């Protein structure tokens, strides 16, 4: 019990980080499951959101709301632009998409660092959120607890939209049969562009709200991208629910794993991925979603 108590802060920290990753990874898995796009600039969108938050926060609550909106908008614009850039590459394979988005991430990432400098920038939060809060006998940064609530709400809302709304139904239909969606009178290209914009918006929002936890930098962009990739692989292709579970898992590996066995944490991610791939029934992965 004492042991559990001692590691409780790490567990809560892991939940915070896991939810942060989920917000990013849900965008990646959407882009990947629905639009069949491997977006290596996704971490850079996260970075853009973080800088947007830094620019608009002024220590007030309105500033925080504005940061969330600005991050979302910046991410959506970035995602939409990426979908426009990827369109001409249709039919030339995923390698080209990967190369293009990686090129974009290098250019945009390095331009951002030149504009904002390489020091970590922290958004200006309301004073209350900078205070520690006592919860179950431990001190936590108040912002982390707020973030858990906000990200939890976002996940619930996202789940409702995907499973219960007409837009969600269209998106799910895109995964199953693009031609049928076209026959219903909906332009699949428009849906794809929309999905990439939403994916970008999610990463931008995560960057904005996550900036006090993981500030924008090239390193953060890479870390978030890699961990999101692991989450998407472990969680299953285009599966939001799977991504949710996997994100919480990776969050625990990231914080609890580092606290318990610092030397082993990179291998733990490896192991989680290997187990997920081997345990899951082959047919699901065999055809790689719908990429035959």
């Amino acid at each position, binding site marked *: 019990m004492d042991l559990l108590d001692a590691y409780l802060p790490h567990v809560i920290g892991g939940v915070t980080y896991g939810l942060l990753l989920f917000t990013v990874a849900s965008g990646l898995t959407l882009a990947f499951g629905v639009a069949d796009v491997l977006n290596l600039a996704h971490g850079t969108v996260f970075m853009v959101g973080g800088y947007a938050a830094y620019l608009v926060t002024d220590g007030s609550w309105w500033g925080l709301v504005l940061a969330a909106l600005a991050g979302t908008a910046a991410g959506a614009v970035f995602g939409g632009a990426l979908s426009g850039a990827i369109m001409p590459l249709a039919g030339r394979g995923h390698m080209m998409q990967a190369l293009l988005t990686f090129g974009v991430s290098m*250019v945009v990432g390095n331009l951002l660092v030149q504009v904002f400098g390489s020091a970590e920038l922290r958004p200006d939060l309301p004073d209350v959120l900078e205070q520690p809060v006592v919860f179950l006998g431990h001190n936590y940064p108040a912002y982390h607890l707020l973030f858990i609530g906000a990200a939890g709400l976002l996940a619930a809302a996202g789940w409702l939209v995907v499973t219960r709304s007409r837009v969600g139904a269209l998106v799910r239909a895109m995964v199953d049969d693009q031609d049928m969606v076209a026959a219903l009178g909906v332009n699949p290209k428009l849906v794809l562009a929309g999905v990439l914009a939403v994916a970008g918006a999610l990463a931008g929002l995560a960057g904005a709200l996550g900036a006090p936890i993981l500030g924008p930098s090239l390193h953060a962009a890479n870390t978030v991208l*890699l961990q999101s990739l692991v989450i998407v692989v472990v969680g299953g292709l285009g599966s939001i629910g799977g991504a949710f579970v996997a994100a919480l898992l990776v969050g625990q590996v990231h914080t609890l794993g580092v606290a318990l066995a610092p*030397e082993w944490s990179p291998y733990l991610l490896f192991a989680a991925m290997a187990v997920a791939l081997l345990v899951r029934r082959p047919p699901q992965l065999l055809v790689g979603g719908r990429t035959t």
Partner: protein
Amino acid sequence: MTRLLLDTRVWTALAVAALAALPFAVDAYTLSSLSGIISLGLLAVSVAVLTGTAGLPSLGQVAPYAFGMYTTVVLIRAGVTEAPVLLLASGAAAAVFCAVIGPAVVRTRGVVFLMLTLAVGELTAQAAQQWKAVSGGTDGSGRLDPTVPFWGLEPLVDEPAVYWYCLAVAVVVTALAGWAARSTPGSLVRGVRDNEARMRADGHRVGAYLLGVFVFAGMIAGIGGSLLVTSQRMVFPSDVSFSISALVLMAVVIGGAASLGGALVGAGAVILLRDWTAAYLPGQGPLVLGALFIAAVYLMPGGLAGVLERIGLRRRKEAT
């Protein structure tokens, strides 16, 4: 005469001869960076084997490359510096690594394969960074002893000797890879690439073929990693980072995914360009490289070979 001019074998022989004569024409510094390029060239060949022959676009071939590299580092530290042992052990270590992760990896296709290999490559780079006893962390491996080309011979110390060694190994390995691609197993793997369902229906063991080519490509990458240790005699975890993967991928795209020689030439072009921009635009390297990636994707469908085809210098090959 025209036929002779269009024969790739003639051009290949001429190119190898020209490369072998380079130490008489350029300075030691250029030679040592060329040796490093040859090592990355083999990594590009390994990616080209997977992408071109098997249709499996890998973003993580730095993983077996890292295994080969650190196998050579460990052996040299232990006092084993003979090239045949280093090359065989590095190739074998990388092949074993690929045989272990392969069964899970080659079950996937398309984007999943890309993501999975990317994750494997990145995690290997992180592991290299963390395993300080072998890699030395960000400080690097420290100065290592030179490689001895064969028992009883002098160690490879001066730049031309190192360069000739790397070139010879690369030429032999690339020729071997080209021969393997044309052999019967090679055409079976191409069959899987072109029509997997049909191959399955015909009773071919698709999974085993792909695992075979994955292990073979890993071995090539491992040998490339060993060459890097011989040429630099000091290696860093950043030598196996994702930007190296991307650089090599770009080399393959420029060289044309199906062409092994093209992959080598592409690697040379990309890395020379990177070093050149690093010298003239200090600090802007990644920016220029990123712009180069974007330009290559839009402007060079089919790579250099595609460009040559379009201007009619090269016979159109079977579509890949």
